[in-house]
């Protein structure tokens, strides 16, 4: 085990997979000469050369489409977006090309491609640079969506994503790149996609939260413990395929669920979890499923407003107390 930053864990996964498989390459804006906008790919150009670490023009639709073509031709591209906000100009390449080619070709083509980059809000970046995309991309059948909350999960999940024969949207976080944590250095350290992690065991209320929200949820669990409530925190890690069984089993134990998600609330990851849980665990629910999400507006710029916009620890505590009938 080594203590790595999130960016180092991601880099370790890419390096290991590129050493293992000559078909894996990294392409994106500033990934090579500049060592990555957030230094995720630092040193990789020197190590693998310009054939496998490629800088591109500012043209997301172009290099995303290039990646799709390379994957169809049998390579395993890793396409980095400087932020997933910019993936919207490559929307067609992601949701129509990458997501549907296996289906539309009757299985003649697989699509072993990873689109990765920072997701969600990162402070005062205003409305167009603060979008959380997990709810959006998990909407499309054909795409897998991964959103790790810590360096170890990031490494194990990214290695699984790179080896996966389907397109994977791999979501990182600008504000979490410096987050440190113990990371396995086992050479084939793989965490399977679609497996949630019970991060904290508890008996009274289940809190489902991923990525940045996961840390808010853990804070909330501490606060709830001070108030005498024993919260269980489940980190889904993969948004799609979703490990609903683990969540449902937890809810059947605690009878209460709060879903935390920094997406906007409408037709979102949180609404999906709430829906599936009422389908699977209706008779175990002692209270309606509560959600804590970004507010249903474009992300504001002002410091106080963006802080208010994001799911906050006190909101999670309040929601948990509400389903505990503890208010």
């Amino acid at each position: 085990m080594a203590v790595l930053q999130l960016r180092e864990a991601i880099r370790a996964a890419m390096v290991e997979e590129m050493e293992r498989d000559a078909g894996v390459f990294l392409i994106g804006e500033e990934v090579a000469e500049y060592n990555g906008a957030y230094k995720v790919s630092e040193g990789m150009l020197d190590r693998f050369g310009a054939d496998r670490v490629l800088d591109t023009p500012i043209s997301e639709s172009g290099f995303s489409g290039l990646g799709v073509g390379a994957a169809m031709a049998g390579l395993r591209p890793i396409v980095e977006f400087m932020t997933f906000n910019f993936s919207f100009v490559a929307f067609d390449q992601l949701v129509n090309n990458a997501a549907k080619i296996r289906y539309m070709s009757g299985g003649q083509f697989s699509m072993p491609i990873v689109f990765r980059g920072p997701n969600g809000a990162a402070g005062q970046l205003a409305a167009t640079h603060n979008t959380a995309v997990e709810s959006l991309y998990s909407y499309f059948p054909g795409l897998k969506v991964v959103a790790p909350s810590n360096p170890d999960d990031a490494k194990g999940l990214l290695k699984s994503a790179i080896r996966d024969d389907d397109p994977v949207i791999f979501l990182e976080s600008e504000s979490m790149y410096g987050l440190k944590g113990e990371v396995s250095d086992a050479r084939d350290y793989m965490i399977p996609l679609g497996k949630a992690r019970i991060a904290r065991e508890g008996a009274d209320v289940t809190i489902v939260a991923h990525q940045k929200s996961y840390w808010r949820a853990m804070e909330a669990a501490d606060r709830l413990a001070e108030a005498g409530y024993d919260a269980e925190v489940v980190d889904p890690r993969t948004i799609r395929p979703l490990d609903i069984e683990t969540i449902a089993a937890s809810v059947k134990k605690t009878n209460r669920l709060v879903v935390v998600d920094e997406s906007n609330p409408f037709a979102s990851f949180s609404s999906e979890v709430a829906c599936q849980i009422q389908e699977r665990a209706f008779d175990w629910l002692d209270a309606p499923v509560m959600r804590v999400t970004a507010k249903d507006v474009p992300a504001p710029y002002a410091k106080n407003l963006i802080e208010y916009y994001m799911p906050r620890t006190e909101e999670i505590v309040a929601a948990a107390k509400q389903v505990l009938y503890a208010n």
Partner: protein
Amino acid sequence: MPIPVEMPKMSDTMEEGVLVAWLAEEGDAVSSGDIIAQVETDKATMDLEVYDDGVLLKKVIPAGAAVPIGGLIAVLGKAGEDISVLLAGYDGAAGAPAEASTSEAPVPPAGDGAVQPAAPDAESDTTFAGDDGRLKSSPLARRLADEHGIVLQQVAGSGPEGRIVKRDVEAAIRRHTPAPGVSSGYRMPTTMIEMPAEDVSEAVRLSQMRKTIARRLSESKFTSPHFYLTVDVDVERAVAARARINKQAEAAGGVKISFNDFVTKACALALRVHPAVNASWGEQEGVVLQHRHAHVAVAVAIDDGLVTPVIRHADRKGLAQIATETRELAKRARDRALQPEDWEGSTFTTSNLGMYGVEEFTAIINPPNACILAVGAIRDEAVVKEGAVVPGKRMKLTLSSDHRVVDGAVAAAFIGTVRSHIEEPLSMLL
């Protein structure tokens, strides 16, 4: 001017009423004669009418609260009208219902799940305003209740708007499961089983009826000196007569006569002969009231109590009419649909536990009557007739009398007349 709606006196014995359900919402336009709520009195659940036109401005008390007669229930008026002055005028009364309901009924702590609606929260009566009468419970609470045989209607909800949640059902399960160990999470103790004292008894809220029964019968037993006379009545002829009557009634599609109808009729006729028994003690007036008419009340057991609807002029009515009226009144009693005129004005009461196999018993006089007749079961007995032991049918009647009004000899003469009517039913035709 806003118009107050106060708790009316709905029966002669009523002291307070429980507002069972609101039937109108704040802001609704109402006119004279509209029913805005249901009120449980000591005898029945009755409709609360308004006598004015206007808008229901405020529901002063939540559903489930008890209000003394004259207490403020609601305020009518014009939309937007200021009612603060009126409310202030009722300050004591408006506060009284809440006090009355907490001081008179032992309200268990929230979550204890006694038989009562969710403890109304004075702060949040608006949440009750939208109450559509549905029983609210979480899915888990319903499943738990089902698995443990808990009747949700008997569990008080501690969640929002009275929703029954897990902890409420669990509390109810604990009460119904004296020994721990049922839950798979606990190991059955092998030595001492601790039984918390608070789990031993279940607090059942006093209904208005139960309060009234308690008050009136205590008053009767503690103030009127009871004495008891028991006779064993030969009912062979009456049983035979009833069989013949009912056979004909069946053929003709008429009403069937119960044995108790014979008793009612016999008592009514005997009351005519012995007016001293058909009387009431009037200490304050310095009189004994001898009643001109024979109105015989019949005790009817219903859920959580009993009522005594009256067969008026039973002496002048035929058995078929007595049977029809008794059956109708008993049905309405069980439906809690009796009106005050159905139970007021009795001059004598009968109580029959024969159908439970009770051989004889003593009844407590139903004020303001002077006497009550307790009717036992019809028994097959070996009896002596003309020097021979033969099979016979017997029934014991026990008359409780208020010695202030009726002396032993008078009571004995009365019960003798009742007996002779039942022993020779044809005499009731005369």
